[in-house]
C-alpha cells in the first residue's frame, strides 16, 4: 500500500470488514448482530457525542414493550444496547460524521483483480438487480466511507460492507408553507424536545402545536409538566397520526384540546410569535374562510412528520422508494449496491423502536453472511407491488432463493380502514387473506410470506399486497 496507488491515494486507509453509519438503536442492534454472527472487524461511526440516537431525548416511557416486556424510557432502552456493544468490545467512534460514501473505482496492485471497476455509470440510479449484474461481472467493490471528526480530521475508511443506519430528521418548516413573518418562537417538535429534555431549557410559555404525530403529543405533555400552557393541538387530517395511548395520556389527561381538520393559516408577531390564526379545512385540506380563530401564544411547535436522512444514499446513487424516501431494498435489506444494507428510520420511518432493533439485527446478520460469502448473489428479484390501500412495502423485492423459510414484509396503509381484508397475491392471484379490524396509516403492519408458497407458483413474476372488502 503506497502513495502510488490511485485507490488508496496519499493516505494509508483504515480497512475494516463492516462500517455501520449511525449509532442509534438501528446501528447498535446491527453491530451486535453482525458481531454475534462472527464479524470481528467492524466499527460504528456516530456524529453525536454519545451513542443512542434520537432515544437520548425521548425521556418518556413506552419503549421496549415487545423486546423486553417492560416499559423503558428512551435512554434506558438505548442503554441496554450500548452496554452490550461495550461488553462485546465493538469499536465505535463518536463525534464522527460520515460525509461521503463511494465505491472503489480503479484497480491497483494492492487490490488486484478483486477491485473491479464496478460503479460504471456513476451517478446513475441502479436497481438491486442491476447492481448485482455488475457485481457478477467484476469482483467485489469495496466501499469508501469518508468521515470527519475534530480529533482525527478528514479520513477515509475502506470497507467490504456498509450498513446505513442514519435515522431520520424532521420535515423542515419551509415545506409547511405558512404565510406571514418568521418570528422567533417557531420550533420543530423534535428540536423543542432536545432543548427541554437534554438542555433543560424551555422554548416558551404559551404553546400551540401543529400536527398530532407522536412527537407533538409527547411534547404537549412535556411542556405542560414543565409549566407551560399548551392551548391547542391542531391536526390537518381527520384523524391523528399518533398512538391512541398518547392522545389519552398526553392530551386528555391534561385537558389539552385536539382539533382535527384544522391548520395554522397565519402567524402573528414580528420579533417573537404573538399569536397564531387557525382555521378549519375542507376535504381538500384548504382552509375554510370564516372559520379563522386567533390564539395568543409565544411558541408554535411543528410536528409535521419525519423523513429519512438519505443524503449519503444519494451519493452512492442508490435507487430510492418515493413512498418512504428511503432506499429500495430486497429481502436481505440490501440496497441496489451489493454489500450496502439499510435499516431503521433511514429505510422507512418506524413508530416502534422494537421493530427498528429487529430489522437492524436482520441487516447485521445479512451483512455478516455477505462478508462470509454465504449470501448468494441475487438472481431473480421478484418485485413486491403495492395494491389498493397499501402505501409502501419493505422490502420492495424478494429473491426466493435467498429468503429464509419465511419472509417478513412490513407495510403501511394509505388511509384508515375498518373491517377489511389484507390480501397477498402471487401473480395477481390471492393466496392468503387476513381479516383486519382496524388499519391506520400511523401503525406499521406486517405480513409473513412463506417460501413454500412462493416456490409453489410456476413462473412467479410478482408479489402484491392489497386491502379488500
Amino acid at each position: 500500500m503506497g502513495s502510488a496507488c490511485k485507490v488508496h491515494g496519499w493516505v494509508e486507509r483504515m480497512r475494516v470488514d463492516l462500517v455501520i453509519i449511525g449509532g442509534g438503536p438501528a446501528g447498535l442492534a446491527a453491530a451486535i448482530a453482525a458481531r454475534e454472527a462472527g464479524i470481528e472487524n467492524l466499527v460504528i461511526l456516530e456524529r453525536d457525542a454519545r451513542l443512542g440516537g434520537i432515544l437520548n431525548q425521548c425521556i418518556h416511557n413506552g419503549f421496549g414493550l415487545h423486546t423486553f416486556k417492560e416499559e423503558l424510557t428512551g435512554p434506558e432502552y438505548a442503554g441496554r444496547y450500548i452496554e452490550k456493544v461495550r461488553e462485546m468490545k465493538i469499536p465505535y467512534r463518536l463525534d464522527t460524521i460520515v460525509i461521503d460514501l463511494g465505491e472503489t473505482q480503479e484497480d491497483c496492485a494492492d487490490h488486484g483483480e478483486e477491485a473491479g471497476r464496478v460503479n460504471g455509470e456513476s451517478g446513475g440510479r441502479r436497481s438491486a438487480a442491476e447492481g448485482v449484474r455488475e457485481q457478477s461481472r467484476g469482483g467485489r467493490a469495496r466501499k469508501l466511507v469518508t468521515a470527519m471528526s475534530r480529533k482525527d480530521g478528514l479520513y477515509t475508511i475502506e470497507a467490504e460492507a456498509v450498513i446505513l443506519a442514519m435515522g431520520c430528521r424532521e420535515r423542515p418548516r419551509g415545506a409547511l408553507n405558512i404565510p406571514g413573518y418568521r418570528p422567533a418562537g417557531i420550533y420543530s417538535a423534535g428540536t423543542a424536545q432536545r432543548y427541554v429534555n437534554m438542555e433543560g431549557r424551555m422554548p416558551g410559555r404559551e404553546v400551540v402545536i401543529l400536527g398530532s404525530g407522536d412527537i407533538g403529543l409527547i411534547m404537549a405533555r412535556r411542556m405542560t409538566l414543565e409549566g407551560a400552557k399548551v392551548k391547542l393541538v391542531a391536526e390537518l387530517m381527520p384523524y391523528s397520526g399518533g398512538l391512541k395511548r398518547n392522545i389519552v395520556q398526553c392530551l386528555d389527561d391534561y385537558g389539552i384540546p385536539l382539533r382535527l381538520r384544522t391548520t395554522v393559516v397565519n402567524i402573528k408577531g414580528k420579533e417573537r410569535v404573538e399569536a397564531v390564526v387557525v382555521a378549519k379545512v375542507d376535504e381538500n385540506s384548504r382552509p375554510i374562510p370564516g372559520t379563522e380563530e386567533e390564539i395568543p401564544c409565544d411558541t408554535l411547535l411543528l410536528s409535521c412528520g419525519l423523513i429519512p436522512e438519505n443524503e449519503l444514499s444519494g451519493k452512492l446513487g442508490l435507487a430510492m422508494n418515493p413512498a418512504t424516501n428511503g432506499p429500495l431494498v430486497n429481502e436481505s435489506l440490501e440496497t441496489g449496491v451489493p454489500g450496502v444494507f439499510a435499516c431503521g428510520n433511514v429505510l422507512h420511518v418506524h413508530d416502534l423502536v422494537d421493530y427498528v432493533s429487529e430489522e437492524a439485527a436482520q441487516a447485521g446478520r445479512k451483512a455478516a453472511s455477505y462478508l462470509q460469502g454465504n449470501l448468494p448473489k441475487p438472481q431473480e428479484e421478484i418485485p413486491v407491488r403495492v395494491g389498493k390501500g397499501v402505501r409502501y412495502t419493505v422490502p420492495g423485492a424478494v429473491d426466493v432463493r435467498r429468503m429464509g423459510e419465511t419472509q417478513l414484509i412490513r407495510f403501511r396503509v394509505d388511509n384508515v380502514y375498518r373491517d377489511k381484508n389484507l390480501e397477498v397475491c402471487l401473480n395477481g392471484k390471492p393466496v392468503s387473506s387476513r381479516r383486519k379490524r382496524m388499519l391506520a396509516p400511523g401503525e406499521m403492519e406486517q405480513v409473513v410470506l412463506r417460501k413454500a408458497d412462493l416456490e409453489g407458483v410456476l413462473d412467479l413474476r410478482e408479489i402484491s399486497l392489497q386491502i379488500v372488502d
Partner: protein
Amino acid sequence: METILSPEKKELICIGCPLGCNVAVELEDGQITAITGNTCPRGADYVRKELTDPKRIVTSLVRVKGGELAVVPVKTVSDIPKGQVMDCIRELKAVELNAPVSMGDVAVKNVCGTGVDVVVTANVEKGTSCIEE
C-alpha cells in the same frame, strides 16, 4: 378520555390496542354496574382501573450540578395515582443531583408519600455543560 354522559354513565376510549374502542360504563353509587362497547376483556379491565384507581408512570427531569449535561431524565419506578402527578413534578423541581449520576440511581425516595421511588434513567458524567444558566 372520559366523557360524562350523566352522573351514572361515562364513556372512555380504551388504549389497550389500536382499535381504540369507545367503552361505556354505567355506575350506581360509584359502583360499576355495566360495561359495554369493549371488544375484548382488556377493555373492561382498563375502564375499571381508570375509573377506580387511575395511575401513571411519571417521567421528567432533575437538575444536575457539575455534569456534562445540566439535567438528567428520571422516572417513577412504578405508576403513581394520576391525581399526584403534578405534586410529583413539583417535588422533582426542587431536586439537584451532583454529577456523576448513573442509570438506576435513586433521585427521590418515596415521592409525595406514594411509596414509589424516582430513579435516574441516563448517565451523566462529570464535566461542563455548554448551557450557561
